[in-house]
């Protein structure tokens, strides 16, 4: 966990340098950190910032969300994974006060999205999957409008817009018409709109959709930076490697049901029957294969060229014992490597690909 926090911290630092445009306009912008004003009205740190309680949503006979429950604490990034039509967007829209559930409740900072949407909206920023922008406006006007809408006036509004422009790197194109923005720039603008009022909770529905690799990395870094500053982030994405890197917790959802929830490592451990081990030898492949098959905790031994793959149902100690045994049996080992199952593997194992 410490390592992960350290990595996130490093990423965040590099993000400030990489994402925020260097050069004349923003040369001193690095100093303008995005700092949510938690001192004002921040709810008790022990209570979850996002809490979904037994949420159900049906559309006719289709059960889009079914008995969904999870929590996200302040400063956490929660990844929502699921195939198309799994119920991710519906759950997020309920949290974002845009839809009503059939049953259950969704809470933001201890307030119900259903019964107190006005209070929730002040505490939350939402970036929907398909969002529109006003074509006749430019970036600064767009952010200025939303800053006004969130009740920011005078210097507070001016500073909020400037800070958001700098944070999202849009200050270089502030007077450009939205009509002329690329997809990536629009995504940044929409993210800027979602954070202009410094929310405590950020809900991002497929934020990296349609972005080029560089923009994706930059967006990921931005999200990590926001989380570091105490914002609870709920993010959905199809790009699982991306989520694995930035999320503290993930929830795998299919057909409206939450199939697994926890940290990526926990889910991997819980869903995995062991680890995949690759062994490369100089010779005696068949003999080694037979010896390996006879060992306890080992299954699915296959020989491919000069390498042997096997499934080891044990921990690192078992893996070490296996390597020691191979050497003691005088096999000429050139490579012995284990590969943990990726989030994609886990996802494929847990989900069935069924759609509603």
């Amino acid at each position, binding site marked *: 966990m410490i390592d992960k926090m350290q990595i996130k911290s490093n990423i965040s630092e590099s993000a400030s340098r990489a994402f925020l445009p260097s050069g004349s306009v923003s040369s*001193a912008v690095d100093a303008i950190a995005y700092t949510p004003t938690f001192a004002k009205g921040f709810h008790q740190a022990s209570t979850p910032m996002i809490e979904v309680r037994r949420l159900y949503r049906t559309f006719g006979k289709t059960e889009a969300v079914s008995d969904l429950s999870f929590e996200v604490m302040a400063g956490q990034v929660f990844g929502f994974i699921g195939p198309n039509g799994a119920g991710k967007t519906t759950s997020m829209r309920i949290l974002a006060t845009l839809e009503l559930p059939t049953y259950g409740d969704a809470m933001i900072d201890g307030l119900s999205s259903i019964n107190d949407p006005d209070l929730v909206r002040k505490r939350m920023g939402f970036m929907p999957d398909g969002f529109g922008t006003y074509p006749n406006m430019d970036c600064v006007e767009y952010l200025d409008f939303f800053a006004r809408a969130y009740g920011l006036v005078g210097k507070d509004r001016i500073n909020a817009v400037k800070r958001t422009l700098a944070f999202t790197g849009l200050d270089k194109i502030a007077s450009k018409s939205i009509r002329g923005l690329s997809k990536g720039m629009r995504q940044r603008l929409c993210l800027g709109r979602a954070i202009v009022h410094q929310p405590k909770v950020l809900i991002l529905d497929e934020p990296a959709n349609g972005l080029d690799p560089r923009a994706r990395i930059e967006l990921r870094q931005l999200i990590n930076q926001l989380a570091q500053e105490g914002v609870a982030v709920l993010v959905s994405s199809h790009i699982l490697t991306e989520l694995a890197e930035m999320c503290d917790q993930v929830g795998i959802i299919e057909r409206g049901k939450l199939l697994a929830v926890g940290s990526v490592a926990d889910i991997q451990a819980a869903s995995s029957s062991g680890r995949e081990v690759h062994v490369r030898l100089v010779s005696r492949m068949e003999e080694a294969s037979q010896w390996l098959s006879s060992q306890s905790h080992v299954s699915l031994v296959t020989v491919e060229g000069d390498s042997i793959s096997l499934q080891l149902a044990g921990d690192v100690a078992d893996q070490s014992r296996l390597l020691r045994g191979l050497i003691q049996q005088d096999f000429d080992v050139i490579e012995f490597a284990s590969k943990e199952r990726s989030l994609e593997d886990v996802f494929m194992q847990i989900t069935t690909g069924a759609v509603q």
Partner: protein
Amino acid sequence: MSTISEGLSTPDSDPIAITHSSTIRRLLDGESSIDRWLVRAGDWCSPILVKETRQSLKSRQFQWTFILLMVAIAGWTLFAVLTSVPAIYFQPAGRYLLAGYIFILVIPACVVVPNAAYRSMANELEQGTFDVLTLSPLSSFQIVLGKLAVASVQSGFYFASLTPCFALTYLLRGVTWMSIFLPLATIAIGSLILIAVGLLLGSLDRARRYSTLISIAMILLTIAGAFTLYGMLTGFVFDMANTSGDPDMQIAFASMFLFFLFLMTYVVLVILAASAAIGMASENYSTTIRWWGFFQSLFMVGLCGAGFGMMISMTTGRGSASVFREAEQMLSFFFITQALHWTVLGVFFVSERGVLTPRSRRRLPATLIQRVFLSWGNPGSGTGYVFILLCLAGVILSSMIFWVWLIMNQGGATRGIATYQSGYGELNCITIGTMVWCWLAFYLGLVRLFMVCFAKNRANRFVLGIVLLLLFQFIGIAGTLYLSTLESNTNTPTFEWYSIANIPWSIVDSHKLPSGALEALLLFSSMVIALNWLTLSRDLTVVKLAVPPRVKEARTESKAILEDDAD
């Protein structure tokens, strides 16, 4: 640590950076003192007003309309003046020019701007900006009001650009300031009503299933509205010149002013309906609309009273019977318009599902007295049904009190009524008042019963309610005509007791209703009311919920933040 302003300071070497930085400064800080003043003033305006003004004034629609308006003004002025030469030197030509200017103004104000307002709302839904807009703390009422204000600002530009032309018509003689002002006021109010209707239509179809149909309806409505208004106004402008100085015109102006005020109450009603259509799902908008409808009725009673007052002032030199007759006709007309008002509102009220969210339940009346008098404003088809019946009954009774007072003012009730009857015959307004109340109770009661029994959890309940009401009306008209034709020996329908279900026919024949007809209507409507009363309990047993402590805490936090910001 550098400040934000320092962060945005730019070296001279980067022209792009300088451009953007200067835009940020200009829009947010203001470059000149006027800019800065405007930026500060903008903080006090509705955010949606600022945003929509920026958008609409940059839009091609506004630019093209404005250019075309200028061209039309110049073209018409030149054409009218040149074709009036040499008569323009010795004959008044103001009216002729004014009629043209009214036409030029009516098109953008009553066709272009309302359609632009409709598109503005519809585009929010079509282009996916509606979600992000509603996510902001702006209330739906603020959103609709902001859009209405911007459309009015646009209209204001068109009015302002025509101001010198109206001055010219005055200089060319033939028009008075009143004959210029009244058409302008009428166009402004007509434009406002059409804008409000456009916003309502734009917000109704959130699923965008009927967008093409609604767009066409909106265009046709505005064109029809514009041409009707133009026809009325040109007639008025030409009549006005002939009757200027007539004392009756003062009464006409006063009546028109009151009528405009009355129309404005409908603009508010339409705005409330539009904001309910786009508002938060858990919010209760029904109660506000109900009480606004009630306020409209009170306003109309006031107008009716003013009408009676005018009639009393006109009795000098005229027979009392004739005044009574006019007052009685006015009262009957008033009852019919009231019934229409409550039918239109009522069909929505009786179609309500009546499921109260905890948010709505926090604001329910709490004490016994409040519950007795105010529960009828709670959402729900049952409370809605009783609410409209009580309101209409109240309006009819209070108007009747006015009417009796008028009679007594003429020398006592007995003598007054005797005078009235000698001049006219039956007390027809009482019959009309009773009939309209019973029809409302009967038809809306049937719609509600159908909803409660067969369409409890159905979607699109409002549409179903309207369809059911129209269907029952059709059965009432066609069925009674068919039955009476069958009964007649001459194949000509005659008014039978059951023909009372046929509203238009009954109003026309209200003087000669056959015996038993009114009694039958009273009996059937009482039965429908009784059946509805039996199914009312669910709406009335809902109790108020306490506000959760966390919500109270959050509201206190919000207040504290606002106070901090103010400091």
